[in-house]
């Protein structure tokens, strides 16, 4: 099991490194695309700044606090996107018949799909999110304790895993409907957009659903409440607020099940 995981990781690294070398062949194009990613995701935050030129707080959260939520959410999405962003092209590969090639290679098809056209330019998005996150941490007067410090890597790691699982589920769905790749966007990019704002602006029922059905509140909301020392609008017991690893594990299990079911069902294209 450990050996298998190690060889999978090795294969992923080799494939990703190959794609990095490919992208560095066209250096100018690579630079433009990375800066482009930085700017395009940066405008997301400029939009929040524009809103704050009209208001002083949103849902009881100040600009710096929303920047913290935004940075956390965007960072997790960015990391997940870097690791397996192109998995959403599965449908395209199925239609073109090129997915078959991956199945006959001696590396797991999932690893190959994750590393497919690995795009280092996505560091642009991660950098942008990191800058906003760092600014928020500096701008906010946080009462730092060891637990709060530890909560930051906890937020990034489990938030990323939650998005990795959502990306995987979105891709696996394409084994059934190969041209519905956009469906996944509602959960990945939609989920990240949703998590950029405080849950206090959404109806309570929606927040409950986002905690117990589609656990997006565990990406950054509950860790942020703990770091910022804010009350939970749902008033849940604090054990629930620290359940991000559980949410990540459940979603990962669901993702693995979906992917395996999809692979088993796959019968290639053709008439």
């Amino acid at each position, binding site marked *: 099991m450990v050996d298998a995981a190690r060889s999978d990781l090795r294969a992923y690294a080799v494939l990703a490194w190959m794609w990095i070398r490919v992208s560095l062949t066209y250096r100018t*194009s690579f630079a*433009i*695309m990375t800066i*482009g990613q930085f*700017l*395009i995701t940066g*405008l*997301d935050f*400029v*939009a929040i700044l*524009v*809103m704050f*030129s*009209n*208001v*002083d*707080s*949103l*849902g009881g959260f100040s600009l710096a606090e929303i920047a913290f939520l935004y940075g956390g959410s965007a960072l997790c999405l960015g990391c997940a996107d870097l690791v397996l962003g192109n998995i959403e092209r599965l449908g395209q590969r199925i239609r073109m018949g090129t997915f078959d090639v991956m199945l006959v290679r001696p590396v797991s098809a999932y690893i190959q799909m994750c590393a497919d056209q690995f795009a280092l330019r996505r560091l642009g998005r991660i950098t942008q999110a990191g800058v906003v996150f760092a600014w928020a941490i500096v701008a906010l007067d946080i009462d730092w304790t060891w637990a709060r410090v530890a909560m930051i890597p906890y937020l990034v790691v489990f938030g990323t895993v939650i998005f990795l699982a959502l990306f995987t589920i979105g891709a696996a769905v394409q084994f059934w*409907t*190969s*041209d*519905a*790749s*956009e*469906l996944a*966007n*509602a959960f990945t990019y*939609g989920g990240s*957009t*949703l998590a950029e*704002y405080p849950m206090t*602006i*959404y*109806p309570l029922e929606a927040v409950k659903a986002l905690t117990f059905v589609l656990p997006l509140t565990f990406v950054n909301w509950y860790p942020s409440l703990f770091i910022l020392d804010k009350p939970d609008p749902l008033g849940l017991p604090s054990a629930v607020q620290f359940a991000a690893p559980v949410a990540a594990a459940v979603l990962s299990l669901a993702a693995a099940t979906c992917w395996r079911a999809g692979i088993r069902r796959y019968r290639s294209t053709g008439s």
Partner: protein
Amino acid sequence: MRATVSLWFAVAKRSFRRYSTYRAATLAGIFTNSVFGIIICFVYIAVWSENPGAGGYDAKDAVTYAWLGQAMIMTVAVWNGGATDDLAARIKTGDVAIDLYRPVSLLGWYLASDLGRALYHLLTRGLAPTLVGAALFDLRYPADLLLSVQFAIAVVLAVTVSFGVRMLVSASAFWLLDDTGVKHLAAIFAMFFSGLTVPLVLFPGWTGDLATVLPWASYLQVPADIWLGKHPGTDAWAALAFQAAWTIALLWLCHLVLGLANRKVVVQGG
């Protein structure tokens, strides 16, 4: 002339049908637009409950604006795509040579094709999320028939302005061969200055004044303001004239650029 017009109709009709084959993709897109529409609505409701008159809108205007925005994303192809992407691909492969020696204007052909696509996207990706929005939120509707007609004209002009911009982006492939970088940049401008990420009425000070005279204002802000009745009386016609002026300017520029490309550029492989 009649032959040309009937050709354009034929091209538009086939383009409409071509897009209508991807049913699952359309349904998935409608779902995604609806999810984003709902999220944006709650954000706007939070903004307008904090500042009830922000940008001269009330909360109902803002919520309506959110759904109009979702309806226009695909219709005006804010993220690029549509007929102009086909052209860029054909420039890259060299197939554009065939387009260039057809006895009809390249611009007219692609515009017709893009209008066909836009109509399909309006009827599916435009209409369906709006119905979802209408079911979930209290929306504002055009006050009278005249406003509805003016809105319809504004949507057509929004597509032609965006076509002009996208055509220029694609034509850059004549010189650059790969238009990916330019396309990225164009999408950033379109996203932001169309008022899709945040309504242009909220832009502070001179940035708002600047954004409202740029071509991208035609994509969403102008049609939305007509729908919401923010242009009383003859102002609506002035807003439409603004869009028409950008359409003419951009199509004329496209015409010049394509002429230049025709003379200066050696088609790939030739």
